[in-house]
């Protein structure tokens, strides 16, 4: 049974018609001991068949250890959204529910180069040299989560110093423990700084400054 019904596919095609440059979705998967790898793989097959500019690459998490390490992929299912270069945009866990919007949004951003960030933020990012790792913890039913994910991914797209992960927390309960996530969205900055809720752009940038 297909993951996306005809109506959704039609809508996806319409949205992806706005693509300009090719985008590769590089997925890390394995056959066993991965709750949602199969679903994620099927979803991406259907998604990438919706537009010629969209390509799917599937790597085995076990066999392609080197690549996974280089792509900073440490859990699966994982998706790297890659354009002319890798901007550090990752999805861990199946991008279902509201997070499907986040995935489409990141594909379009990487493809068109269009970001929506204030000039203040851009000015800060232009001089940012220290590495920043953003992890946005979400659940697929959380309506406030895509805002936090899209913001983090935009920062990663704009700045080479920033990488940003969406992490679907119900698939990685040990991370919920590690980062004491009990509400979503929660954005973790460089392992130890937290921001709860769908915070406005300026607030996230302030928090990143604190974390540096």
């Amino acid at each position, binding site marked *: 049974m297909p993951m996306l019904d005809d109506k959704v596919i039609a809508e996806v095609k319409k949205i992806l018609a706005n693509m300009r440059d090719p985008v590769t979705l590089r997925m890390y998967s394995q056959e066993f001991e991965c709750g949602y790898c199969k679903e994620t793989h099927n979803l991406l097959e259907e998604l990438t068949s919706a537009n010629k500019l969209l390509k799917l690459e599937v790597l085995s998490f076990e066999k392609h250890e080197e690549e996974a390490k280089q792509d900073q992929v440490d859990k699966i299912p994982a998706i790297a959204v890659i354009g002319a270069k890798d901007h550090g945009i990752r999805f861990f866990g199946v991008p279902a529910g509201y997070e*499907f919007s986040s995935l489409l949004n990141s594909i379009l951003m990487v493809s068109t180069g269009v970001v929506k960030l204030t000039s203040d933020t851009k000015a800060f990012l232009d001089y940012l040299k220290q590495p920043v790792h953003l992890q946005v913890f979400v659940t697929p039913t959380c309506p*406030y989560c*895509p*805002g936090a994910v899209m913001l983090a991914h935009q920062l990663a797209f704009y700045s080479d110093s920033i990488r940003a992960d969406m992490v679907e927390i119900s698939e990685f309960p040990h991370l*919920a423990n590690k980062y*004491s996530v009990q509400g979503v969205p929660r954005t973790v900055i460089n392992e130890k700084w937290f921001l*709860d809720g769908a915070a406005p752009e300026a607030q996230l940038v302030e928090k990143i400054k604190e974390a540096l």
Partner: protein
Amino acid sequence: MLDFDLGFISSANADKVYDLIIIGGGPAGLTAGLYASRYKLDTLMLERAPISGGQLTSTQWVENYPGFPEPVLGQKLARDMEAQAKLFGLQIVSEAVTEVRLEGQVKEIQTDYNTWKARAVLIATGASPRRLGIPGEAEFSGNGVSYCATCDGPFYPDKVVAVVGGGNSALEESLFIAKYARQVYIIHRRDSFNADPIIVERVKAEPRIELITNTVVDRIEFSEGLERRIVLRGVTDNAQRDLPVDGVFIFVGQIPNTKLFEGKLTLEGGYIVTDHAYRTSSEGVWAVGDVRAASLRQVATAVGDGAAAAHYIHKYLM
């Protein structure tokens, strides 16, 4: 079954003057957007979240909206309302409004990214969950304290959870949380509930839910390394006692989202005052839904507000 939701790509234009700008994309705003688009008004909606629907998106089930004899998911209803409005040409832009200039012929609505212009403005900014304002609440918000059951309910499988409040939201969301948690305590400061009797009955029949009435929460103590607990106080005898819980959900009413309009429009208890035609104190500015004083604050009334206001705005612009 996995569900998929689609984002939105907008072709809105900040250089032109729109007929109408709607601020807020809950049921009131979306209905006004649907009607205004069908009136062929050039309409732009500004919604701070990337997902429209307002408080509907954080409601699990809606069962008092006519036409749905089976309870409908709040998130589905929101998505369908948005799809319907967009079908007729409503433009939605996901930007938070930071400043408004409502006087004069052309109103200006400023966001972090653009200054949008229109001849008429409809305010549908709704309301946000009210905070209790007790020690520990802000500190543990997002880490054991929550205002959204659909977001955070799944974090409590087989856990013990307290829900604070006695209205429809508190009781309905308790029923949802009880699907995950093994024990839900509803803590309410009175001995009777403001919720619809049908919901009260259902809550009373749910074995996992226990009602603690005539009681308030004094503080939330969720410090790391210690057993998580809240401190309760009896309203009649003032006696304090501890209740060990893993999380607290708070549904104690709303506060209107009207900070932008303070000093610019006539407010009453924070809500925007309107006349029978949903006009505010400023010409060319309307208000609908939960943000409006004297609103019943239901999906059904928000929808009615939105439809009627679009009609009056259409007449005004003609």
